[in-house]
């Protein structure tokens, strides 16, 4: 069943261009040049219920714009969009009660009040039955490890603590679709890992659909099953992490340590030699041949240790951005 369906979605922004300085300001006041920017250009997506999708791309690629259209914040310039069977921009109550949108950069909590007060506000706004609210609150508070800070005013909490409180607030109403826009942005490693664990837990069981944007590849690798790469407003890749490795076509590196004599001519036939000395060798091989080459090395050479490494998701994605910019 489709949770999200978009066809040929476009969004065009406009703004007035202004040159620097007072003269630029005066010029813009009377003869400002109106500039149109196509933030997204023909996005077609089909996301099933229960999928956890990483939506990635460079700055200004159109990720957040797409998420804002899907959550009913922005009105698309053209194209078809359907989320849980609703047109998001109509902002039906039933639609809004089934989604949540959490961004790492905006604060939704009451600044001077403790999180507990905001959670109660959510209970009223989302019309959550009291027993369901109590159960969800207990589960989420435990999962987010915020039990000891529930009564502390938000302004007294650290950034990471606030974000975990926000995540609890965003999930209290048990939304079917969770939009997360760079949730670990500006978080330290420990808090980011905690938050990833939390998101992963929410994605289990296939009941919730999660769309996550992030520049942090650990978020994507840890949490997402499917990756959609968007660049300059267009989807340039849509598939699993494995498929991404395959299409990137990067050669794998096999590092071999020997504990006996070996012959270079025998090794050269297996791949490209990157580095070598008497004791060790670094060999680059085609991804499909990695297993057979490693097995052959074990059988035919005095191997002491062997390790295989890939290029890493970050490098693959960077190469896709660069290819698309050419």
């Amino acid at each position, binding site marked *: 069943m489709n949770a999200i369906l978009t066809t040929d979605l476009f969004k065009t*922004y*406009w703004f007035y261009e202004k040159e620097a300085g007072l003269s630029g300001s005066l010029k813009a006041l009377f003869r400002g040049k109106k500039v149109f920017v196509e933030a997204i250009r023909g996005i077609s997506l089909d996301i099933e219920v229960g999928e956890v999708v990483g939506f990635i791309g460079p700055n200004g690629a159109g990720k*957040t714009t797409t998420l*804002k259209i899907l*959550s*009913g*914040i*922005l*009105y698309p310039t053209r194209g078809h969009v359907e989320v849980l069977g609703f047109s998001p*921009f109509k*902002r039906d*109550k039933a639609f*809004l*009660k089934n*989604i*949540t*949108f959490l*961004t790492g*950069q*905006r604060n*939704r909590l009451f600044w001077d009040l403790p999180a507990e007060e905001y959670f109660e506000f959510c209970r009223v*706004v*989302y*019309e959550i039955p009291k027993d369901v609210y109590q159960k969800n609150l207990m589960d989420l508070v435990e999962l987010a490890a915020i039990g000891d800070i529930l009564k502390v005013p938000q302004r007294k909490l650290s950034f990471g603590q606030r974000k975990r409180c926000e995540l609890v607030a965003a999930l209290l109403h048990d939304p079917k679709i969770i939009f997360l*826009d*760079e949730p670990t942005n500006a978080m330290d490693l420990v808090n980011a890992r905690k938050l990833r664990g939390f998101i992963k837990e929410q994605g289990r069981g296939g009941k919730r659909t999660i769309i996550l944007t992030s520049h942090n590849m650990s978020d994507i690798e840890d949490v997402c099953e499917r990756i959609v790469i968007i660049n300059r407003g267009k989807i340039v890749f849509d598939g699993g992490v494995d498929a991404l490795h395959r299409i990137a076509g990067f050669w794998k590196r096999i590092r071999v340590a020997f504990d006996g004599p070996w012959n270079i001519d025998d090794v050269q036939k297996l791949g490209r030699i990157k580095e070598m000395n008497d004791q060790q060798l670094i060999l680059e091989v085609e991804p499909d041949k990695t297993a057979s080459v490693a097995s052959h090395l074990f059988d035919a050479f005095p191997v002491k240790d062997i390790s295989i490494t890939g290029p890493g998701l970050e490098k693959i994605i960077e190469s896709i951005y660069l290819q698309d910019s050419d």
Partner: protein
Amino acid sequence: MRQMAYRPQFFMMIVGKIVRIGLLFFFFQAVFLKVDRIGHWTYYEVLLLFATFHIVDYLMSVTFHRNLAFHLPQLIQTGELDTRMIMPLNLLFLLSFEMIDFIDLLSFLPSLGFLAYVLCRLQFAFSWIHALAYVLLLVNALLFLFGIVLIIATISFWTTQSFGLARIFDNLLKIGRYPLDIFEGVLRTVFVYFLPLVLIAQIPSQVLLATLSLKSMLYAFSITGVFLFVAISFWKMGLKNYLSAST
């Protein structure tokens, strides 16, 4: 309860309110030392109009005016409107009444006291039907002003800011505390038909004084209906043009 947290500020606010009413009260006294009437309005009738204006102005300023005219443009500029848009609430209702300080109701007392004083001094035949019509026309005045403030606030979707326009409106609005009989020609036509400030205080006051025709009353309700329809349609158009802000 933000204002109550700052006691000196709270008491100064009430004192300020009394001083403002007092100064205009003395102004009218000074004027009526020289003339018997302003247009067709006697001294106490003018004070009734003035008290009515204050009540409407006060109710508007502590509810939707501050929220729509000043807070909404900020939300649009910063993109904070996003967080309101995903709540399963009527967005317009939420944005219109998001910041209400119930302690403001206490500062309503000087205005009510002033109205009570004027009503006691006015010589007119009180009728419950006219009193009910007066209350309905006060609500009508608030809905009319809501329409205008909403139109001004909605402009922010295109311009990001509309403070200037809101300030112009605030100043224009003050004309509504005088009998609009003082204007003639084009200005009179403007304030009766195009920007009908007569709806704010003059028409409710006239109904209490039993000098308003049924036709004028129906006109008041109809024009408010038109303003509200235009304002809400414009608001919907504005929402479609919301561009949020980059994160």
